[in-house]
């Protein structure tokens, strides 16, 4: 004796948030039932099984709509209240920070997808869920790749995502497009949110969209002209006078404000060289990829070994940036501001004491 067929269809589609989450997390029906029993919703296995299967079916049917969230709003098959629709979309596109940290900056290709089982066992995120998240990244990437205009806004409009989530996706797309290296051992201490913040900075300040009023090109590529101009900053380290002048200006300004003044003074040339060299090399795509590792190696690590506090770093970078403008032979003020603004906020975000 067995139940051959068992369906429940509501005029307003009934969806349980809890079951939806279990489905998204990649649990099988049976596992989900076990979890629900443990959760204490209901003891009767039969009832839960029937309900869970029903909901899973509904989600599966909705899934193809969720791939194009705008369709969810004007499809006729399911009558879902708008707040529910928003919930469905938001949760479908939500991702695990642990997982995204693994694929951040990697090419969203079939090859990467094949390696997802390793990622799954490493992060503890179920393979099914990994695949969903990966496909989401890829889908968003493909859609916005061909669109004009601001990246975050495009993502928000096309996938009807809440602002924060859209920003995160923008970061993922941006990282994937520029193939930033994030997986090196030295970078492992950084969280996805650290990177997402940096990506936001880069998108807002260093892309073509940032200056060109978002008309022509898109937000995903760095502004080539700007990168070209960055080479001019080299004068700050190649011109000996300028370097010394810069150092004395900074140190004078810092006097009495920090406990690590000596270390700052001793390291000034090294640090300055590091930052300016990063700027000068950014014109090469390969060096762009190493942007974050360079920041860590050339700046963050030296500071950390000298036990600078975040306040110290902030103070140092502020004066370092401002003092350059006082140098009489230094002419590249706007490039310098545009460069250092991002560098400063990125370093501060990445500087974990």
């Amino acid at each position: 004796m067995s139940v051959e067929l068992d369906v429940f269809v509501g005029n307003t589609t009934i969806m349980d948030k809890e079951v939806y989450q279990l489905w998204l997390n990649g649990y099988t029906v049976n596992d989900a039932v076990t979890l629900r029993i443990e959760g204490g919703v209901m003891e009767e296995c039969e009832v839960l099984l029937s309900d869970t299967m029903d909901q899973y079916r509904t989600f599966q049917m909705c899934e193809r709509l969720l791939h194009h969230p705008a369709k969810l709003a004007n499809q006729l098959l399911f009558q879902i209240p708008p707040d529910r629709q928003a919930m469905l979309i938001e949760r479908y596109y939500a991702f695990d920070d642990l997982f995204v940290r693994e694929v951040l900056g990697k090419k969203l290709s079939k090859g990467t997808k094949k390696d997802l089982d390793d990622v799954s066992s490493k992060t503890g995120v179920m393979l099914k869920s990994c695949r969903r998240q990966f496909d989401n990244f890829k889908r968003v990437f493909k859609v916005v790749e061909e669109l004009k205009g601001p990246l975050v806004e495009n993502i928000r409009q096309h996938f009807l995502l809440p602002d924060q989530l859209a920003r995160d996706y923008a970061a993922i797309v941006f990282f994937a497009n520029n193939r930033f290296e994030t997986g090196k051992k030295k970078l492992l201490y950084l969280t996805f949110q650290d990177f997402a913040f940096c990506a936001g900075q880069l998108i807002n300040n260093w892309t073509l969209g940032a200056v060109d009023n978002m008309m022509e090109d898109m937000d995903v590529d760095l502004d080539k002209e700007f990168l070209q101009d960055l080479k001019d900053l080299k004068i700050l380290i190649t011109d000996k006078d300028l370097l010394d002048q810069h150092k004395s200006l900074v140190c004078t300004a810092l006097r009495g404000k920090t406990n690590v003044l000596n270390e700052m003074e001793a390291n000034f040339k090294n640090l300055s060289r590091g930052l300016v060299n990063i700027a000068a090399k950014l014109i090469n795509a390969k060096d762009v990829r190493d942007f974050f590792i360079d920041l860590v190696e050339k700046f963050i690590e030296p500071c950390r070994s000298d036990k600078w506090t975040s306040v110290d770093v902030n103070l140092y970078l502020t004066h370092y940036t401002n003092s350059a403008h006082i140098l009489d032979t230094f002419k590249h003020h706007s490039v310098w501001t545009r460069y250092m603004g991002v560098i400063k906020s990125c370093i501060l975000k990445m500087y974990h004491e």
Partner: protein
Amino acid sequence: MPGKLKAKIVAGRHLPVMDRASDLTDAFVEVKFGNVTFKTDVYPKSLNPQWNSEWFKFEVDDEDLQDEPLQITVLDHDTYSANDAIGKVYIDIDPLLCSEAATVISGWLPIYDTIHGIRGEINVLVKVDLFNDLNRFRQSSCGVKFFCTTSIPRCYRAVMIHGFVEELVVNEDPEYQWIDRIRTPRASNEARQRLIFLMSGELQRKIGLKVLEMGGNAVVGYLQCFDLEGESGLVVRAIGTACTLEKISTLPATATLPSNSSPSKDIKEPVFGEEGPGVPLSSGPPTPLRAQTFSSFSPSKSYSRQSSSSDTELSLTPKTGMGSGGSAGKEAGPLKALLRQQTQSALEQREYPFFTLTSFPPGFLLHLGGVVSARSVKLLDRIHNPDEPETRDAWWEEIRQEIKSHTKALGCHAVVGYSESTSICEEVCILSASGTAAILSSRFMQDGPLETDHRLSRQPLVFSTGSERVDGDMGSTASLGFEEMVPPGCEFCHIPYDELNIPFPAQLTYCCCCRRYKVPDVLFTTIDLPTEANITGKGCLIQARLCRTKKKAQGEGNAMAISNLLPFLEYELHTQLMNKLKLRGMNALFGLRIQISVGETMLLGLASATGVYLTALPSPGGIQVSGKTPSDITYEQHISNMQKKINDTIAKNKEVYEINPPEVVEEIIGSPIPEPRQRSRLFRSHSESSDEVSEIDLSHGKKDAFVLEIDDTDAVEDIHALLTDSPTPAGFYSCNTEIMPGIQNWTSAIQMFTSVRVFRLNNVNLTNQGLNKVFSDLCENLLKSLYFKLRSLVPCCLCHLNFTVAIPEDELIQVAVTAVAMSFDKELTLENGKQSGDKSLKKENDEQLQFNLELNAEMSSSNLSSPKGLTEVGSHPSAKASSLEKASPLPEGRSRSLRSNRSYSGSSVAVVRMTPLSFIPGAKIIKYLGIINMFFIRETTSLKEEGGVSGFLHTFIAEVFAMVRAHVAALGGNAVVSYSMKECVFMENPNKNQAQCLINVSGDAVIFVRESEVEAASVHPQSAATQTSNGEGT
């Protein structure tokens, strides 16, 4: 040329990819009506084509307008091979033919394919220009309004209720024609869908003609059914109640109405033809025309393959003399007990004094006799001549006659809550009819409109039902003071039959309300609880379930075996109902529906009803268990344990359902039957069995009804069944009637649903008891699942829980449920002012959202259809898919936490409510747009890929809902009331990876507005609020 049908194809969206190479589609549309076909241009390479066609005009007879659907086919153009069909849309244009209903059909409709399901949507505009036709002998009946609702529709007033109308049409089933062997499944399905559309159109037209002849302008309680008789054909039959309705024009035209609804029209619509509300007709002498129609039920000829034995034929002889309308008057004998000669004579004019309505205007229903039912087993034979469906007519004729005679035996002159059904297995068909014998007031059957405002008379009743304690007092004051004027809500319980000449043994007492008239101890009915009824506590769903094995047999032997089993089945169902009713401490059943389903090796019986405690009826006694072998001590103990359990359950149930009737001194007065036996009002028989069987005493014969003798294995089972019914979880109530007796303060949250389960009995050698248990568990588990699913709506009530059982195959049991969950406010406050204030505030918020939504839908759709919208879409070929979405205003400031009004406007599909009830809580229906009657077939040859049988059916039901909603929205409506799924035939062949399903649904498309809006607009908000809320509560 009395009509011009105009159709315009605007656009398509979400079309499937038909050309793999380009991932696009070259779509065009064929618009067909009758034999005329128009085509749009091909819109190349797009999944969202913008045809924006000219108006296609069809000049047709109104007869065709009624019969034919408009057929829209979307195809993919192929230069080299045949064009591929994407799918079809059938549009029933009937709603456009009635001036009071919809005026235009406009909107996105799903494109449906019987193999692939919904494949995109198409935006169409359809209009009809009708020219007045005054031809008296016309064959069309445009303008007659149809309602599925089984009460007087909310924005109408009954001027006159004429009575029963019925019709059936038969045809060959395309699925069984020879050509089916060579055509594709798709072609065969489409032929079937189209045929059924045509047949329902024809049926509706014919019923409409009958209504016009009776002088009515509407059919209420329209019930249309299909009998898929397989080889022997396809029968579409319908019954209904002809009425003359008048629109209530109290509603002020407000600006807040959805723009589709034109401001409320004049009361007196020019309905084509001669009849007007003031012209009395039905009681007049039969005109020649009238005689002509009724001749279609020609006297039943003696039919050779009837499965009845010869003595049955004899018992039927009086009926063969009947049949034409003229002789009905003679047949009806004088009613002894009754005073109301007028009503009587009015009713006697009718061939069948039957009413498909289940609730009535107050004062219409005078007394209720009890349930009358009749069943008959027939052997199906091929229908030779579709134009003369005589045999089927004759079968129903017999059954109706039987119902009529039962009614008379109960001292009643009418049947209310009347319905008919069939169950078919191979060549055997069980026809069933049931209703409630009643005595009606003549008010609605005489000339001239009813002048009293029944809303006023309803007002005090709501209060009395709320407070149980007062009931007794209320009753007595009423009986002292103005008994003739205001009935204390007990009148309908008073026996209609002669006390000295009771048709069956019964225990009578004086009415507990008025103490003047006799009432029975229990009352079974098929109708909804009358609004004026005094009840104590709350009601609940009561089900009796039964399964009986049957030997496999063929032909007449099979029919005989079935008809021999039927009486026992009914008897046991009745016993179960009675026991369960007692166990809940209640004394009356409403909405009783007994369904008997036949399979090859078993019979299923399912009786559902809503139990209540009628204050007027005496308090029910308990249930006593007794053993026959008192010597054994352990045995005694066992019995006393059981007795204790039963007593506890009764006590607990009384608490749960709040049944604490006022203590009455039990005075059993002058009952002519000395022994205190419990009696039923269930009167039923089988035309196949002899007359003695039909007289079977359904009460428990010689033993006391509620003494269950434990020696009897059946009794053990009964007790077991009684006690294993799991109680409804806290916060839930359930009933199968329109509303739950005892609950009034509904919120606007409703959730309609359909659930289907199929159970396979792998173990072939099951005993009756085993089968019973399986079946009972199946129903119980289904209910449990429903309660669990809907737990978020608590406190809530599942209303109109309508179970349908079927035996699709040997060893398979199918149960389908359609119902609505409605939540209510827990506090039963009677301070109307405060409560309605609170509520209206809440509702207003709610409504604003709703309204925004609709506005948006309209905005975006107008964007699309306006030329500006079109060019916008055309100008970005690269982003075509997205530009559609861009057309709808997207909220800008969306953030994670923001779930307020702004994010709501993201949706561009108007919300359509669906409910099996005739009303929407907290809202007022301002316009009926027409009947929705849709039939779909879905087939698959890739069952596994579609998620197995469950996945397949899940999708299909969701698609059916979607199509219903889309068609309602296209008519300009925002809800379907009185929705029902009348057929769900599911067949599977897992070995071949195939499945097929047929679904038939119906309902009334309406426009409703929230009460808060009505209040805001009306001059006396307070009085309007109380009035309407009373209306909702009933």
